[in-house]
């Protein structure tokens, strides 16, 4: 095992990606709940679903980026 405080910070930044997973799951789960209640409206909302997923995921990707920056700069 080796590394310095930046490696530790990169590991901590990994928590952020896990939290983004919560957000993505929340978006997809709520979409599924709504789609099961009203299946006829589901197809028209897939674009909204993907926009929501993208926004939720972007913040997790930011922390992944922070981890990369900490490890390789």
């Amino acid at each position: 095992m080796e590394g310095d405080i930046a490696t530790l910070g990169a590991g901590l930044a990994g928590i952020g990606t896990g939290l983004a997973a919560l957000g993505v799951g929340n978006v997809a789960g709520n979409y599924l709940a709504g789609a099961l209640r009203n299946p006829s409206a589901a197809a028209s909302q897939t674009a909204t679903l993907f926009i929501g997923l993208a926004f939720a995921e972007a913040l997790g990707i930011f922390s992944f980026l922070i981890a990369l920056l900490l490890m390789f700069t």
Partner: protein
Amino acid sequence: MAGENDIVTEVPSVAESVTEGATTEHLVEGGAYPAEEGGLVFHPLDQFIVRPLFGDGPISWYTPTNVTLWLAIAVLCVAALFIFATRNRSTIPSRSQSIAELLYGFTHKMVEDVAGKEGLRYFPYIMTLFVFILFANFLGLIPMSFSTTSHIAVTAVLGFGVFFGVTILGFILNGPAFLKLFWMSEAPLFLRPIIAVIEVISYFVRPVSHSVRLAGNITAGHAVIKVFAGFAAIAVLSPVSVVAIALIYGLEVLVAGIQAYVFAILTCVYLKDALHPAH
């Protein structure tokens, strides 16, 4: 030359070939880990190192590298698909023609649904972005190939192109009224300046998140495959890791499509803001 060097004995030569002129975001030293543990003998991010196609010289902006090669291949594939698929058009489409028609119809419907009828004027731009990113993502999934969209340098050009294009378009079409985008007319008056500040910040974060999302997803996915490939060197874990690589590869095929779709649909959303800035 464009492939990745996974073999342990070749890794030191990779480390020498990585010069200081390498301009990637993922500046990895390319050094091999000690192999006595039998585990990870190459770095998972080694696959993203930019190397010159010919020789080992320093990389300038004009040097043909593996990124150049795979970007060119992506462009050629797109051009070949759409030129050859639509050469002998028929009412009953051939296989390649139906692929081209499906892509066209899919993107057309997406632009019309999200950006509205006025957005269809900018359909060629979004179609180009979508098909190019889709092909670059899928070509990156070929074993030993190079995933160009994993580099922020590549995606940032696309992302900032969309950002500047949409901003300039918004000012051309609406004039100063484009700034209404930041002024929520439904919000209570005393909250509006605060919301305006937040809106301005989120507007300028857009190109960053737009490009980092694509690059981050592709980088993370490919790195995960490589991490499991490293576990394959341990005898006990190797069956698990081979199955895991196959499953994650399937996931990555899905991600490659979805990220191209997300990039295109977010372009449509930003375009809609430029066409109708008032909330």
